[in-house]
């Protein structure tokens, strides 16, 4: 773990790395995401587990999170490597949420990015189909952002509809 940490530190600038148990958290600038993901993939972290996003409304930022882990190199042996989960974080401005796709590195990123586009309103450049995934209705504010009040929306939208007698 320490070795990996030093490795990353030496090849990337402006990274902040913290380690707890099996989890390594890497904070990186938004331009470094593609390079660090391909770097991690090349050293064996081939499994993209999750792309998530946290709405940091106080800092007026959106935090995009990539979680990668490793598949086994040898079919029947476990190594220290597979136990690690690496969380890569980056922040983008909340009012101009443009970002680049990582589909060239991990093919299964596609639905995750579509989901984030729909639920957080993040636009991923280079993504081939940013079509609606889950939602049928169109919401003014993307529903997973913190300033979307679901209870208020329910009250305004659904409760006005009259019952049919």
């Amino acid at each position: 773990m320490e070795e990996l940490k030093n490795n990353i530190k030496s090849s990337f600038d402006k990274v902040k790395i913290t380690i707890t148990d099996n989890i390594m958290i890497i904070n990186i600038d938004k331009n470094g995401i593609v390079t660090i993901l391909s770097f991690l993939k090349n050293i064996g972290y081939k499994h993209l587990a999750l792309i998530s996003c946290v709405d940091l409304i106080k800092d007026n930022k959106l935090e995009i999170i990539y979680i990668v882990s490793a598949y086994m190199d040898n079919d029947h042996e476990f190594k220290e490597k597979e136990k690690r989960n690496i969380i890569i974080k980056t922040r983008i401005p909340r009012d101009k949420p443009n970002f680049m796709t990582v589909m060239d590195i991990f093919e299964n990123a596609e639905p995750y990015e579509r989901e984030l586009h729909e639920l957080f309103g993040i636009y991923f450049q280079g993504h081939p189909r940013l079509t609606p995934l889950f939602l049928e209705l169109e919401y003014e504010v993307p529903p997973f952002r913190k300033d979307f009040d679901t209870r208020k929306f329910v009250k305004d939208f659904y409760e006005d509809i009259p019952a049919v007698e």
Partner: protein
Amino acid sequence: MRELELYFGPQHLGMVGNFSITLNVEGDRIKKADANPGYLHRGFEKLMECRTWMQNFPLVCRINVVEPDHIELIYSMGVEKLAGIEVPERGKFIRSIYCELARVASHLFGLWAYANMLGFDTVAQWAMYHRDLILDLFEELTGARVYHIYIRPGGVRRDFPQGFEDKIINTLHSIGGKVPDYNATFFENRLFEKRAKGVGTLTRENAVKWGAVGHAMRATGMEYDIRKIEPYAAYDQVEWKVHTRNDGDAYSRLLAIRDEMIESVHMIFNLIDNMPKKGKVFAKTPNPFQWKIPAGEAYVRCESSRGELGLYIVSDGGDKPYRVHFRTPSYSHGLTILEKVLVGESIADVGNIMISLYVVAPEIDR
């Protein structure tokens, strides 16, 4: 030949769960498949942000209706990790037994769905009957058939009732006694072999590229099982092994599931033997109405019956989660792998491939 657009689902007998695939077919061959989820989207993760840590339990188990138990487990694990709670030893064992029972029930449900897809009603009905026997156990233990809310942060809700271990053993024996019947009619049936061999093949490279987990990965020969890699509950305290197959097609996936089911049953016997006979089953947690969890974030994962289940959870020090995101195994299976694997297959095999990958719609939509 004319190209037809065929809507496979949401209203379709061959669709388990509310999911839809738009197929472009030419004759019997699929040219293009377009998965169309969202029929079950409720915005769980948003709703959880408006509820306290304990109030979320009724919600989380409803994320996956086929197997709510592992979702309860993963959420509890996440909360425990954030709050730094240790689970007592007996609680760990009970969790393991309970999750393995859930795994067997879930696999039997999968067997029902799969056999139904092939038009194999007889085996399907048997599997559903046997699943009900396990649900009866759950009902006695937790009071509910489907949504149990049994696992909670710090352990489990209550101890086993008296003589419950024997009941588990008896039920599993009576199901296990039918394994030769299942083998003879289904798993060793030549027609099943013909239908499933070479269908929906997922090679090792593709599996790695598209993020396959669980039995789909194990069917390509890799012993990828979170229970072994990153043991949780009591999985590191008993002997068991991971079963793999080598071909990566629907046939090997189904056989991997069968082996896993049998292994689970043996594991439950082992766990019951090694379980501490007395002791606490849950650690004390603060008053749920005023429970504030220190700020931080955690990523936990476990092996559900469909594969790697993960939870990314963030707390801002308040009484509600700031953000939760479930990494569900069906997500990649249903939206990436299914779309790619279906191309070139026959429409007769859509259900076959979908169920052999164990795509469960509520888990995708959340």
